[in-house]
């Protein structure tokens, strides 16, 4: 457990990560055993293994950590969380690092720069309609972020349309105003905290 005394001995960046993670991720308990890096399906594509990243967080290496592509290659499969001998909430930490990287403006410069764009496009749709809208997501994301790759996904998009697996227009929820009010209030609370 990260007590206040424990935290007072950690790097400022370590504290920043803990503060932005919803429940205590037990990060200070890391043994550097590498079970996470060994279990990760996209481990070979990451510029640092999760384990290395945790050592870097402990060392206060804020910028290199937030510039790393590692969090963006996390597929949220929870294999590392399941196997971690110290019960570290690794996936949650990866989400925290993504948020911090976006806030710090490093996200768009990482070697996995497409990921934040994809996430943002997805969120825009959900905020506007209440549900995801896949056709809109794919077209907007590719046209805005990866125009040259659009052709590569076109056959799959066409295949989905042909099999009636894509909606041509979004299906907004009924009480969209209610959802928007909730999300707006959440944004205000968040802003008040980070201010």
């Amino acid at each position, binding site marked *: 457990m990260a007590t206040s005394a424990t935290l007072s001995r950690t790097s400022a960046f370590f504290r920043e990560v803990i503060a*932005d993670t*919803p*429940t205590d991720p037990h990060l200070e308990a890391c043994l550097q055993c590498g079970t996470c890096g060994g279990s990760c*399906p*996209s481990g070979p*594509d990451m510029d640092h293994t999760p384990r290395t990243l945790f050592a870097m967080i402990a060392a206060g290496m804020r910028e290199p950590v937030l510039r790393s592509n590692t969090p*963006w*290659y996390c*597929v*949220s*499969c*929870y*294999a590392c*969380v*399941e196997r971690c001998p110290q019960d570290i909430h690794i*996936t949650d930490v990866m*989400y925290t690092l*993504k*948020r911090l990287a*976006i806030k710090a403006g490093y996200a768009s410069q990482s070697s*996995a720069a*497409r*990921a*934040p764009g*994809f*996430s*943002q496009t*997805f*969120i825009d749709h*959900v905020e506007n309609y209440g*549900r*995801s809208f*896949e056709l809109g997501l*794919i077209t907007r*994301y590719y046209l805005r972020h990866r125009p040259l*790759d659009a052709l590569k996904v076109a*056959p*799959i998009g066409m*295949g*989905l349309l042909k*099999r*009636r*697996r*894509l*909606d041509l227009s979004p*299906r907004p*929820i*009924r*009480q969209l105003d*209610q*959802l928007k*009010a*909730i*999300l*707006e*209030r*959440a*944004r205000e*609370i*968040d802003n008040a905290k980070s201010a």
Partner: protein
Amino acid sequence: MRYGYYPGCSLERNASAYHTSLMAVAERLGVEFAEVDDWNCCGATEFIAVNRLRAYALASRNLALAADQARSTNGADPAQLVAPCSACFLNLSKVDRYLEDSPALAADVNAALAAGGLHYEAGSLRIRHLLDVIVNDVGYEQIAARVNSPLRGMRIAPYYGCLIVRPGFRERFDDPEYPTSLDKLMRVLGAQVVDFPLKTHCCGGHMTQISRDVALELIRRLLKNAADYQADMIVTLCPMCQLNLDAFQESVNEQFGTNYRIPILFFTQLMGLAFGLSPAAVGIGKEFIDARPALAKIGAAAEPAAPAPKRKPRRSDQGLPLPQMPEEEQP
């Protein structure tokens, strides 16, 4: 049996075959699913990556709606909310758990919900995956009693993916590394289950959109493993897994020069077929890799002898005994 039902965005269109088949199967089994009125997206794996509190508020709106609906319909019963999509299941149960673990988070989330006139008390819903309800509440016996067209001759690789058993934010109904409930269900339907060591490995998730090469390699491994064990098809319980393995199979073949043609179906589709429903009634035909050639094998030929598993050595006088394992039930 009556449950709250949270379909999730995929089941509306992209994985409508899952929705159609699960509803058809539920009817046969006497299970009622009451859809949560006006539900919204659970946030998938994207929302939380950008904003923390908004992500929790987004998912919590569903929990609040479901709990209210349960209260107004069946009174004192502990409300159970069923999600057929593994990502929805994970997000909803994770949010429920974290709201309970962190009173500060719960207070913020409820402050946000209040803007929409809603409130959610962590722990007031029991959130379950569809497979859990099917195998544990309905039970294998009830299912076996409904089987009238057993899937004989069909060799199935049972694919659980990640989020149904990992990391177990609430109760766990199967082993997180080597689950067997879907294996057992498929055997109850009369199918032959092949060993599938990668049964809980990742399908690539959203990486198909972010790093195609990474995703295609993950998909290739799964297809190769299923092919190595001579599976006729892969059966899944998650719309994301189905989409990745199915829609991107051709892309894998192009990228790696392979020639996989492994249909990917939802487990409810096979249940429906075994219950004697028509292929159309369980949404067959929506898949990219045509399932019909594989389905034609059902009952067509005498059951092929199982090829000797590669991992077990041949018995010989010199052979050392294998470790004892808890007996596996063979229906």
